[in-house]
């Protein structure tokens, strides 16, 4: 894979993934909102890949900027071959419950902005008859829980949307990969106590993403055991689930 667009490039998971692609000499277009951090990552990837790296800082909540952004990325790379959408926030559930505006803002960042970008990228890939679209959703999107259902609803929307895209684009030579990580030790989860076997490091997720590209996978749980955990969680009848403290 040569020409790679990374959206939310300052994410710890995205950065770890980019390093794997860099080792194979990929060329990048990076998008993130923190300009200093983005510049440091771009410089690092240039050294690792031996290729010039393009980057631009943008707040991805500005949906009206998306078409021009993708145009610039496509120009700079000479066509996008692979796009990874990784940006996201972990909203404060209690705050969301108290404020419709906070809830909608979380849905805007974690669902609507992803859907906007995925739609535009999918159309571009479809036109050219090739391309790989990867988006990071979450196991949290598989079932609504009282502790985290605003984030979960956004991720659930993304997962479902990507399923539809995959179905639509399968016959057009375009691949869509949905990544569903469990708990990952990144800045997003800085406030959590990271003990125990369920926590993964960003590079484990990155390796899983690269393997999914190589092996032609559609939906992946990372690390692998989440597939089985979620299988069980999905089976619990709602009449029981509603009583559980999750």
């Amino acid at each position, binding site marked *: 894979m040569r020409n790679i667009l990374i959206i939310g490039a300052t994410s710890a998971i995205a950065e770890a993934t980019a390093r794997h692609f860099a080792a194979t000499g990929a060329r990048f277009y990076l998008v993130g909102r923190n300009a200093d951090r983005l510049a440091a990552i771009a410089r*690092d990837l240039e*050294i690792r890949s031996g290729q010039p790296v393009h980057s631009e800082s943008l707040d991805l909540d500005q949906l009206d900027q998306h078409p021009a952004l993708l145009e610039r990325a496509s120009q700079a790379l000479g066509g996008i071959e692979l796009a990874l959408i990784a940006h996201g926030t972990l909203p404060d559930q209690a705050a969301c419950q108290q404020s419709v505006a906070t809830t909608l803002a979380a849905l805007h960042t974690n669902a609507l902005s992803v859907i906007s970008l995925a739609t535009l990228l999918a159309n571009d890939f479809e036109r050219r008859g090739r391309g790989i679209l990867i988006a990071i959703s979450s196991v949290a999107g598989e079932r609504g829980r009282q502790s985290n259902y605003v984030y979960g609803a956004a991720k659930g929307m993304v997962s479902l949307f990507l399923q539809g895209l995959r179905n639509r684009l399968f016959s057009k030579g375009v691949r869509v990969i949905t990544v569903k990580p469990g708990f990952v030790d990144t800045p997003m989860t800085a406030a959590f106590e990271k003990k125990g076997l369920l926590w993964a*490091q960003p590079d484990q997720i990155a390796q899983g993403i690269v393997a999914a590209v190589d092996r032609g996978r559609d939906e992946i749980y990372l690390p692998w055991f989440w597939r089985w955990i979620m299988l069980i969680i999905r089976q619990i009848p709602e009449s029981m689930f509603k009583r559980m403290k999750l």
Partner: protein
Amino acid sequence: MSSCIPHSWGRRPPSQPRQLIACRDTQILPLPDEPLTCLPFGNGRSYGDVGLNNGGALLLTRRLDRFIAFDPTLGVLRAEAGVLLSEILALIVPQGWFLPVTPGTRFVTLGGVIANDVHGKNHHLAGSFGRHVRAFELLRSDGKRLLCTPEQNSDWFQATVSGLGLTGLITWVEIELQRIANPWIVVENQRFGSLDEFLALDAEYESRYPYIVSWIDCAATGRALGRGIYMAGRHAPPGIFKSAPPDRRPLTVPLMLPISLVNQLSVAAFNRLYYHLPRPVRGLTPYPPFFYPLDNLQEWNRLYGRRGFFQYQCVIPPDHAREALLEMLARIAASGQGSMLAVLKRFGNQVSGGLLSFPRPGVTLALDFPNQGQKTLDLLDRLDEVTRQASGAVYPAKDARMSGDSFRRYFPRWAEFSRFVDPRFSSSLWRRVIGEG
């Protein structure tokens, strides 16, 4: 996956930080809640408590792992302080460069390497790591950033090289690399029957080989006392047409053992076997097994079990080296607490750059002992008696128990150094050796 409570390599002493703070970039220094102190934590390859801060906070630096600049024509590399030497090697070796100095494991961070001013097998030629550092940035808890080079802010440079993490956070480092023609090492092995033979071999080999290290059989007694194997190496010249060495997949010791597999029986058997194992006198080897023989067995410290183990590394000035080392070997053999990985090396006369640097002219001996409680601590105290008498020193990066009095004798510039300690920084080791009367 690992349990995320940081511990040191020897798992001694046990320690419980109150707060763990992951550094994210070099822009800000995240500080713990008042009145907690903090300490940078690199990759935890120090054995004792130099990198621990019991009851305080640890600043996890591993995510400061970006390359900043690499000039492949001049061999100058600048990177954030949490980058591992293994990551640097993966970048530079294919481009014909190598580290100027490297410790016996590549899984250490640039910041950790500077804070202990580490030495390698080429000390007799290259000196310690700090001599090859062109610049770094030091970030203090008051937000002040100091660009430190041997010329600029040179007092801070000297205090931070070997500064044990106490002078502030090193955010990035610039080092000078050395040219190599290929990733291969020409090695030469020799058995020696005694310390005198070892010293004679040194005189013969030191001018010809940049890398020298010896393994010494510390289960041997009587006439075999001081026997070992002398290993010398140098980077292979151009024109070696072997293909790139295959990267072997490392094995991992999968779990913490309840008891130590390293005990009197296994140590004696291992030492005997290792001494007699046939090995080619001359050969060619890829660089990783030569420099990092243990890196292919990840988490090997787990072999020592839950109780952990102690390292003891001392340096003895040349004039006293022979007698002091013989005395130590005799005391170890008599105690029945052998060491598997006893390593002997002569340090050169290069002056180390830091106020608390450990390397100094003389012979250094490194040993490890499974923790058997008081019995082991007593033996280490008996070794300290010898080191003190011979005006030597013990390496803080590997220590978990030396007394404050010993520390202050081994590192006479400690008072000068203490003026550079950041008011919000502290460590278990520092409180141990400076706190007590």
